[in-house]
């Protein structure tokens, strides 16, 4: 008969540590060679999970079929038009963003964001190429997509790896809104070749900076955080 010296509860013979507090159990009266049957079995049963890859394969086939039909119709009946390209590009974008992640055995956030960004860039290139806006693509669209991808990627990586509390997460989110609004305005101004001094993004930045300062105060002041918890919990 063994007892936990910390919790005061009786334990199964042969228990090495208390299941409640992890205090090691030392009982010289228990003979180690004695065969002791544990209260619970060792066998684990892991139920089969849904076959997401098979579902993704079916979805891929469903997306592929209308594309083949559209491409054939385009080539055979409207050889002068290239509307089939638009259908293919749109389908590819949908497939990469919504279906392909389920085909991977293991997904990594930054890799998904990179692939999605490249695909969005490609889609924008098709649209700009068809409409003849090559300058707009390289001067504005491409940098905008790159900036947004970097900011979103940084936020997701930070959230996954640093596992911050909600005040720090809010600080990160509002700082990123501030940075992205400034970047977007500067890219647009550069493309339009106008004065590089930011204007409307300054209003957004000022609002974000104020909110960020408030959340910094919440993150550093325990009393304020408790007051927020008490005042704003959702009923």
């Amino acid at each position, binding site marked *: 008969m063994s007892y936990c010296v910390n919790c005061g509860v*009786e334990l199964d013979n042969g228990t090495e540590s208390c299941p409640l507090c992890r205090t090691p159990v030392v009982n010289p009266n228990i003979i180690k060679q004695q065969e002791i049957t544990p209260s*619970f079995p060792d*066998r684990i049963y892991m139920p089969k999970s849904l076959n997401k890859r098979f579902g993704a394969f079916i979805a891929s086939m469903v997306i592929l079929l209308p594309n083949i039909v559209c491409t054939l119709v385009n080539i055979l009946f409207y050889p002068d038009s290239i509307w089939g390209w638009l259908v293919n590009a749109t389908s590819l974008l949908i497939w990469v963003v919504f279906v392909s992640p389920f085909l991977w055995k293991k997904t990594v956030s930054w890799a998904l964001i990179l692939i999605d960004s490249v695909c969005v860039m490609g889609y924008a290139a098709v649209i700009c190429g068809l409409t003849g806006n090559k300058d707009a693509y390289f001067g504005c669209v491409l940098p905008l997509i790159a900036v947004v991808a970097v900011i979103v990627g940084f936020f997701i990586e930070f959230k996954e790896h640093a596992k911050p509390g909600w005040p720090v997460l809010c600080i990160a989110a509002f700082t990123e809104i501030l940075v992205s609004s400034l970047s977007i305005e500067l890219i647009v101004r550069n493309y339009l070749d106008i004065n590089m001094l930011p204007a409307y993004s300054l209003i957004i930045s000022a609002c974000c900076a104020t909110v960020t300062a408030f959340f910094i105060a919440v993150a550093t002041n325990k009393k304020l955080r408790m007051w927020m918890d008490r005042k704003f919990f959702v009923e």
Partner: protein
Amino acid sequence: MTFRPYLCIIYNGYLRIRNYALRKGVTALQNKSWFKLDNAGKIFPGQNTSTWSNVFRFSVLMKEKVKPEVLEQALKDVLPRFPCFDVCMKRGFFWYYLKKNPHGSPEVKPDIVNPCYRVKFNENRGYLFRVYYYENKISVDFYHALTDGRGASLFTCTLVAQYLRLLGYDIPNGYNVLDINQKPTAEELEDPFPKCAGSKAKLPRGKKWVYHSRGTKLPNHMVNITSGIIPLADLKAVAKSKGVTVTEFVETVLLYTMYLMQKAEGGTKPVSVQIPVDLRNVFGINTLRNFSLTYNARIDPNMGEYTFDEVLTQVSAYLKQTHNEKTLRAMTTANLKLEQSVMKYMPLFIKDLGIGISFLITGEKTTSILGSNMGLVKVPDEMAQHVERMYLMAGPGVINGSRCGAVGFKDTFVLTVANIYEESEIERLIFTQLVKMGLHVKIESNRK
């Protein structure tokens, strides 16, 4: 005086016709190829996900090692007595329904360390309960759409009684052991809830969000189980010394544990304990289906600091005030109103979606912990001498760190905590509180 013989003849004739009609009705029910889900059970299939189902476990610890082949035969013998368990789940256009299972009986399997994992309707030969054995223990995992704790205890005790009979022991029927040669009554198989509705008042469930413990979540389908074995007479004596019942005392221990957990974290949200209540005793209906409702006892730490005795007074007063036929009738009426609203005309996939989303948003948000006390389970003396004790394990929650089940048998009371977190702080607080009150607690756990 001269009319008495004629009256007797008429009355006997009436009894014969009534008995014949009842027999016919019962046979019709027993041979019924499908059942509607009861009012409480209708909600559970909608809550099912690929990682969670509402499952609970009832176990019986025998004095001798279990023989699986005998248990398998006992299960086959017992199942016809419980036609509402001999079913599989099917999808209708508007509702799920239970169809008679053609497979005979489920497989009896060696026990696992992670019981109460999710239910999939096409697994386990379609059965909604799973039977396990390990050394001296016989365990049955029940999907809650099938029955509640009381139905589970009736089924498991009848199964164990038949198992002992096959081993050569003479076990009579009585208490929780049903006669397997008797036909089930209509009352046992029908949805009992509509009979108890009809109140002009409707008491909906609480909607206030409360505190939930946090921790490092275990992988999907895994659960930490810790059982505390306590001498029943000592527990009764402690509860009596405080002027409350065992249920009130145990629920207070659970509520006070959650209060202490939040206090250590520095929060001030309300804390509540969900208390399932068996309606059979209140309404006098002996059903094998679900027939329970839940109370929610709560305290608000914003009102100030609480001592254990203050919480005990509050829980005891709440239960004394709430536990009556009128309140339960009003709660049942509110539950049925939802089922009989415009919702009943919606196709099943919309209902599933609605129930799933509603459960995600509000399902466990109104309770910090669940404490289901089945009370004392009685079996005939001839059977009791082969049984060591019984266990009731509430299935793991989604956001409720711990859910507890308790059952008394002979002179022991077993409180089992199912925890979805790696940390064991909740269990430690629960059982050390009992130790501090002078109770002897023996711990069994699947934690390594």
